């Protein structure tokens, strides 16, 4: 009786309360089953792949991995200061975050490539183009992985979590072959920059695929003839591969007013209010409204800029005056670096002088001065390149970050030709001569071919440094040239505000060590070695 009553109550309760359905799905998103059938979604998935190309933080802070810059507060930038000092551990966050970043990007590409054909409403040609864009970006990620780590697991399609636990590293040569093959495939399927509609500005082009392949092979160093061929395709066959030329104004190249100019081959897109770079707040002179200075150009970089007469500052007859060091220098110096007494152009067209030498400022304007501690520069220099006068008031960067530009094609060409022993006055004029002219050199000593007797290799290398400072290429160059073991050992310096008895008064910014048997490759993150039984570590870590 009682049991029956209870049972009946239970049934009643169940009937009254159990009717709420539990299969609830979010209202703002698609499931795997329905997603790819919608054209917009396919576009959005591809846009997401673009989103993961790169970020501004390593773009800028990687300069501090090289001898171009020093970061005082490495903690805010993936500890690049620890890497450059040589006294890092394999647990360093930067290694695992980069490793994870690239593989996350690769996964997006693999998912896209594996699913895009589930869509049947987009034209096949459109889907082919989109696939080529994704393949280019996947190759870009593998190139970065290979650059830093050498052998890396090569995942050509999406894998499961359990498969990930037993992936071995693919030999570097195979990764290289995959990258170049993919770039070939992408180049064949992609439109040129001229073929795209204006609305597609910023998409991967055929020219980008060719240029990236040239960079990949240039870094290998053993296929210079192929590099020459690729560069020539871009220089001489522009009707097929896209029209590119040097932009008239070196400084203006990096400003929002010149977005999508004729020199840009591949860039990271900036959109006002939506995708902006917040890094500059730690680069600019404090009087511009910066929070602090966290990435300071080194004296070594400043010294590398030649004189307007084409001579290095150390050359006899260069005219370099250590007490007045910033006059008659490569015009690219003042487009890149802010030094003492620099005349800064404000957004409204007015100017202000940046006083950096200790004790040099008029009263009340001391904040940019070098101090042994504080929020100002640690080296006596601030950055200028990429500052955009029309950027929003919060010091957010105002322009696209250029990842590959035509100037690089010219310098790759020069370097490849030179290494094949084919450097001529003609090649010089088309490459370094043209770049120097664009930069504002007028002296024939700088513009003219220095002759086969000059140390052309050194000149080409230095030209890359001056042209691409603060564009992230320096660290690649010193690693592939194997000069890191030289330039990354010893003190890196700041301006001549220090104890005259130490290093001739040049500030010691950071003591660096570089082990050539170890540091040319980054360590595989130690946490990954534990998770993936087949993964192996790079030598000497």
């Amino acid at each position: 009786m009682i049991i029956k009553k209870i049972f009946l109550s239970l049934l009643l309760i169940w009937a009254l309360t159990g009717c709420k359905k539990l299969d609830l799905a979010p209202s703002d998103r698609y499931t795997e089953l329905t997603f790819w059938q919608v054209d917009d979604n396919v576009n959005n998935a591809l846009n997401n792949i673009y989103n993961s190309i790169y970020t501004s933080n390593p773009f800028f802070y990687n300069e501090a991995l090289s001898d171009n810059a020093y970061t005082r507060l490495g903690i805010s930038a993936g500890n690049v200061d620890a890497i450059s000092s040589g006294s890092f551990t394999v647990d360093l966050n930067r290694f695992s975050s980069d490793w994870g970043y690239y593989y996350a990007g690769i996964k997006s590409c693999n998912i896209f490539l594996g699913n895009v054909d589930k869509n049947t409403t987009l034209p096949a040609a459109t889907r082919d183009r989109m696939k080529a864009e994704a393949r280019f970006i996947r190759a870009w990620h593998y190139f970065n992985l290979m650059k830093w780590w050498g052998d890396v697991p090569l995942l050509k399609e999406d894998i499961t979590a359990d498969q990930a636990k037993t992936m071995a590293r693919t030999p570097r040569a195979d990764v290289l072959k995959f990258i170049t093959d993919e770039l070939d495939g992408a180049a064949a399927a992609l439109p040129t920059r001229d073929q795209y509609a204006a609305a597609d500005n910023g998409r991967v082009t055929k020219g980008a695929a060719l240029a990236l392949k040239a960079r990949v092979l240039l870094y290998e160093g053993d296929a210079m003839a192929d590099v020459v061929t690729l560069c020539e395709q871009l220089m001489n066959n522009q009707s097929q591969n896209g029209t590119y030329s040097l932009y008239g104004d070196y400084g203006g190249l990096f400003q929002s007013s010149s977005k999508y100019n004729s020199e840009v081959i591949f860039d990271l897109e900036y959109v006002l209010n939506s995708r902006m770079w917040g890094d500059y707040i730690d680069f600019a002179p404090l009087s511009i409204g910066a929070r602090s200075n966290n990435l300071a150009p080194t004296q070594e970089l400043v010294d590398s800029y030649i004189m307007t007469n084409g001579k290095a500052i150390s050359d006899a007859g260069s005219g370099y005056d250590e007490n007045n060091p910033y006059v008659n220098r490569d015009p690219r110096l003042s487009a890149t670096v802010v030094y003492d007494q620099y005349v800064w152009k404000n957004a409204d067209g007015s100017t202000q002088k940046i006083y950096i030498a200790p004790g040099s400022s008029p009263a009340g304007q001391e904040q940019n001065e070098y101090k042994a501690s504080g929020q100002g520069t640690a080296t006596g220099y601030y950055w200028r390149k990429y500052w955009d006068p029309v950027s929003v008031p919060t010091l957010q960067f105002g322009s696209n970050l250029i990842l590959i530009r035509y100037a690089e094609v010219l310098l790759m060409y020069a370097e490849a030709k030179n290494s094949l022993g084919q450097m001529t006055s003609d090649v010089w004029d088309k490459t370094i001569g043209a770049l120097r002219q664009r930069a504002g050199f007028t002296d024939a000593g700088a513009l003219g071919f220095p002759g086969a007797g000059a140390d052309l290799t050194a000149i080409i290398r230095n030209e890359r440094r001056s042209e691409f400072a603060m564009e992230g290429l320096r660290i690649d160059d010193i690693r592939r040239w194997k000069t890191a073991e030289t330039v990354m050992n010893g003190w890196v310096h700041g301006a001549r505000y220090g104890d005259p008895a130490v290093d001739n008064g040049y500030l010691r910014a950071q003591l660096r060590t570089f082990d050539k048997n170890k540091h040319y490759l980054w360590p595989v993150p130690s946490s990954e070695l534990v998770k993936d039984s087949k993964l192996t570590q790079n030598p000497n870590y």
Partner: protein
Amino acid sequence: MNKATSASRRLLTRYSSTCVLSAWLLLSVFPLRSQTAFSSPLKSWSPFQTQDRKITLQVKNEKLGSVLEKIEKQSSFVFVYANDEINPLRKVSITMKEKSLNDALSELLTPLNISYELVNDKIILKPAKPSVPLAGGSSGEEIKKDEPAATARPNEDITIEGRIVDANGRGLAGASVQLTGTNIGTTTNDAGAFSLRIPSERFGNGVLSISSIGYLRQDVSLSGRRTFLVRLESDNKEMNEVVVVGYATQKKISVTGAVDAINKKAIEDRPVTNVLLALQGTSPNLIIQQTNFEPGQGVNLNIRGLGTTGDNTPLIVIDGIPGGDINLLNPTDIESVSILKDAGSAAIYGSRSANGVILVTTKKGRKNQAPVVNYTGIYGMQSPRITYTPVHAWENAYYKNESLVNSGLQPVFTPEQIEQFKTQGDGDWRLANILHDAAQQTHNLSITGGGATNTYMVSLGYLDQKSNFIGPNYGLQRYNLRVNQTTEWGHFKLNTIIGYAKTRIKDHSTVSANLVVDAGRVPLYYNFQDSSGNYLTNAVSAQYNPKGILEKGGYRMLDNNEVFGNFNGEYAITKDLKVRGVFGGTVTNNSTYGRTLEVDFLPSSNYGADKSVSNYNYKGLFTNLQLLAEYTHTFAGVHDVHILVGGANESYKGEENQLVKTQTDALGRPTSTTVIDPNNSYTSNATKPDGNPATTETSLNSLFGRAAYSFRDRYFAEFNYRMDGSSKFASGHRWGGFPSGAVAWRVTEEAFMRPVKDLLGDIKIRASYGILGNQNIAAYRYQTNFSNYQGAYGFNNSAVTGARYVLGNPEITWEKATTFNIGGDLSLLNRKLDVSLDYFDKTTRDILDQRQDIPAIFGVSNLPPYNVAEVQNRGWELRASYTLSGRLLTQTFSVNLSDNLNTLKKLSGGESQEIQQMEEYQIVRKVGQPITVYQGYRTNGFFQTLDDLNKYPRFAGTTVTPGDLKFVDRNHDGVLDQNDKYILGNPFPRYTFGFTYSASIKGFDILLFVQGVGKRDEMIRGEQVEPFHVGYSGTMYTHQTDFWTPTHPNAKRPKLAENGSPSNTNNYRTGSDLFLFNAAYARLKNLQIGYTLPQALTRKARIQKARIYFTGQNLVTLSKLNFLDPEITEFNNDTGFGVGANSGRAYPMPIFTGFGIDITFL
């Protein structure tokens, strides 16, 4: 007179098991309803009255005492008598069958010349003729035998008289005697006697309500009598205590699980702004931590520490409805709080009970009570407790020079400059100058009362807590309204509770920690403003001026509204079987309006240049439907059975949206350059910037039951079971079953323990075992899906939308916590000393956590949860309270102490550790250790000599000099590296305790409440630890001056050195125990000193009670960690990863001092 002792012993009220169960039943029907009187005997049957029990007796030559016990078992009544009046050893013989109680009593007692009276649930026995004085109180006073009802003439007052005594028969002075429904009342004299004139028309049907502090209130029907003897039973005794448990209430003696009941007394009259802060320290292993002390800030709350690597927040049930926001409750509205700690008590809440359950019950009215109006108010000031002070400007300049010189650099301050700093004094740029003392006040007004079939309670509350930040009137206001109404109608009873809470918080427009740090680490060379009032920046705080931001930088205004409703209808099908339906829930509507204004600083920089205006809105609907059936019966007088079955659904839907515009004008209106911020604006059908959906919906279907059995109030057994189906899990993994069993044994009820019981008191042993669940994860995590997000990329200067892939795990299901608990409740020394002890051992398996064993090459950093980890958590609790009553002075001591320690048994897959770098040091999750521990090197003094420098190990590539730290080479391999790290400490509190002392003498009372933590490690970095921290901080503090110098080699801290120098790198960039601090503390949380005005005085003003008091909160703190508040934690409620290191930049703790008033009007 020596008989009085035995009388008092015998007079201990004993309840029959029937009584217990029926009381339980009653109370489960009407949670915490006072037991009201029904002295008019035996009317028609009503489901809420139980006196209509038929009595069957067959005894021969049995002691009267045991015969009375038999009647107790068969009725719901308890006999009360004095041994010196009624001899329980007298032998009787009687046989009766199915007699009514009245008939049975007459038949039994009349021949024995004993009269009886039914009062409440008690039957008072007295000799049938006038007796000698009851006990050794005041001599010679006679209690007249009840006279038959006098025939009163209309409109004429009748004088009644009587005496109020305690259980020992002693007269109670100052007890209140009140004719219910009127303002007629009096208090007793020193002998406990009273006389009262009452209108004749109330003489037949009036009810006297008798109360005295420390005793249970009793209602007595006049029923035409003129003389009364009323025995009040002491309150606060285990026997009478009722405890709210899941879906019901229980007498405390029959509770089998680990349930801690916190009375409103622990919360009353404290200047706390929310309930959780009031509960801190009141219950062992109820651990409450704060991340900062700002008005409106939430707290970390957990019971028995951490049992899972996920969310450890317990389930909160307010007036029977789960999931309410306890922070919005008015602490004054709370009647009681039950903490369900073990499986035995919590399993009826199934899938959400693994972290324990907190049941909050709010106040109600009483039946037959004239309206009582109560006002309480507290007003006082909060002073920020600033724990650190920068050194004087000139001292700082001196130290800075020393730091530079130690690093091989040139000093920057000349002796003249230092002298000048000394002469001109310090600037005003310091933390204290962006803070001020701020007022805090609370006002509460309540009206309670009831008629014969209804009760009501209406309360209004107002809280105004100003912020300690300077600026335009920052702070919090909360408005509370609560109505609780009960109506009975035949077999039907309806209870309605409606609560409304409105919270308004006006906050500055930035992040508090940034203001605190910008104000706190600038050396005293600088001022906030120049003589013209311009806000300045300087070399250390180059970007912002916190004073300018606070005063001119705009604000955020939070306006949160919540309506709570609970409709509870109950129908008695038979007297044993009741069904109950509950519908309740909350409607929430929160909004935030934000306005950032531009402030320019000199010589450079500004704040709020984006001049944004933002509007955020949230609406939430939570509904809960419960249907329950409850059956109670006593078989053969000794077997008590209680069965409860129920089903419930809980459904939630929350929707958010936000609009942010930048570059607006001074009034926040759009201009030609205004844009909608695409990254932070979203509608309710969109994905939020953090990747979560703006609309979330969850639902939970449940079936549950409880079966309880007890035998002779001696052995108890209880079984609970709950099945939950949750929308958070995929079909097939959705339903979980959560059983628990519990037993208890009242040892002292055994016959062989009688002598012990008489000497000691009650002893109960309890044990429980069961499986509890946890599903505290976000919705939809079992589904893989694609969500769109704005601003993914841009083509041709225009933003384009992207689609993100969110991986789901269809396999996820509940966390399961297997919990064992053993405990005991002891009531000793004549119940003056109450002690409870518990030990628990809980193992949580299938913990939902990120898998650590999946390599990054899988490509998903936002992995879905998997059922992977396992944690064991063990600990104990002790509670003790002791009451010392004297003639004038009554003192109560209560203490609680507890410990818990968890051990991570499994992380995921084969992974045995997970590390997060916290700037210099690390936090680690490591199998075999507590869930989260600090890791780093151990220091071993300083390098002092050349010999040290040559021989002692150091890190590769580092240069050390005398005055630098030595680190322990743990593995003695001669080099310092990763392998030399130690587990340095556990950031979670252990040995938490609370101590309360209260005393009252005459009208004065004092209460002292101390709360603390016996053991906790805290790692702190940043400017509070490192002089001239990195380059961000420009100052040293007075607590940092004990540093190494050649003449002071035994210092606490290494020598001063500049950032980037080898010394600084060795000492401060290496995560070591240099950053480790002992955060144990004891804090005088509350001190009250009060005075209650004499009733003789207040009655004239129609005031029943008036108390004025001083109250202070957080008055004294004792801790070895003296430069920061030891209560602050950097962790959330899972001590999980993803938090930043603790840099001690929290809003400071306010110290409150003020006065309160508590008035009850007649």
